[in-house]
């Protein structure tokens, strides 16, 4: 590194630390209190509260409870926006076919063998993050992005054509993506539909029974904490995010010549 570069780095570091010091002293405005605030206390008290069945979210994990129960509608629209972005990329790449006839080249046998091991291990980690999303840190989006790493690895190590030959094609991934979103929507209105059938009042994005709507997703199955709608939301979000990222990565890794034949 040159002397001038070192000087620039040192001045950036001094600037950041002095800014942080001024902020911590309250020089840039009012500092929020350090102790647990009122809103956080409400969230913590109602995330898992078996003594008040009408005021609980049925999972141990507050973050998942906030994302999919307290503010479920917000996350639903985030997922919908993500879905729209994926649809836009698919629309740009319309008509581009991934030819599976040519042989895929890929990397060396050493890289392929190591990747074959990770192809089993990474999906297991992703599934555990998704299925334990209401018990331990994690959730649908986290699990989906972990699972996408498998696709990145296989596209880079084995090649895209090999992936297509194995049956991971664009229509199938698009179907999986839509199934994920439909699943999230159905889970959101599931209790309303069930309430219509049996003649009980229910709200959308309802998880546990409320005062005027005495119908709920299962909180415990046997002695396993099931998490009500949180588990369903996590699983469907896992599928949706994984399929969405996979689709974009597959479209991005098509050869330039193939794309230029269609898009001029």
């Amino acid at each position: 590194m040159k002397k001038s570069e070192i000087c620039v780095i040192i001045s950036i570091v001094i600037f950041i630390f002095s800014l942080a010091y001024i902020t911590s002293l309250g020089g840039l405005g009012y500092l929020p209190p350090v102790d647990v605030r009122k809103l956080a206390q409400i969230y913590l008290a109602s995330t898992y509260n078996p003594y008040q069945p009408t005021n609980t979210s049925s999972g141990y994990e507050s973050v998942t409870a906030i994302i999919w129960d307290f503010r479920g509608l917000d996350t639903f629209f985030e997922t919908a926006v993500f879905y729209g972005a994926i649809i836009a990329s698919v629309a740009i790449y319309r008509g581009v076919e991934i030819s599976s006839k040519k042989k895929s080249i890929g990397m060396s046998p050493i890289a392929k063998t190591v990747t074959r091991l990770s192809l089993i291990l990474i999906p297991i980690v992703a599934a555990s993050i998704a299925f334990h999303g209401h018990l331990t840190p994690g959730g649908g989006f986290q699990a989906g992005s972990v699972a996408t790493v498998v696709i990145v690895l296989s596209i880079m190590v084995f090649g895209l054509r090999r992936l297509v030959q194995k049956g991971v094609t664009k229509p199938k991934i698009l179907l999986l993506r839509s199934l994920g979103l439909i699943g999230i929507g159905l889970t959101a209105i599931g209790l309303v539909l069930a309430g219509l059938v049996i003649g009980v009042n229910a709200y959308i994005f309802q998880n546990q029974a409320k005062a005027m709507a005495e119908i709920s997703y299962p909180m415990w199955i046997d002695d396993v904490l099931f998490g009500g709608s949180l588990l369903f939301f996590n699983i469907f979000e896992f599928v949706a995010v994984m399929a969405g990222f996979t689709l974009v990565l597959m479209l991005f890794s098509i050869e330039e010549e193939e794309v230029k034949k269609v898009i001029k």
Partner: protein
Amino acid sequence: MIEIFTLAFLMLISVTSVIAAFKAIIEKDMVRAIVYSAIQSAMYALIFYVLMAPDIVLVYIPVSVGITPAILLFVTKKTERRDGD
């Protein structure tokens, strides 16, 4: 005592992340710049872990070290590897 160690560790990784970000900006070779950017993101993930945000760590590592560099590498392959002056 533990607090001093935590603060020192935070300071070390944040300085490392600043250096990595600076190298990523001035680097002319795109592939090396992407690697520097991934190092910076890994440091951020460590900071999130120390600040007790495991949910963010779980999504930050695959997105910033796995997916973003992969997309940027695909884009680099389609354009030019070296930055022109």
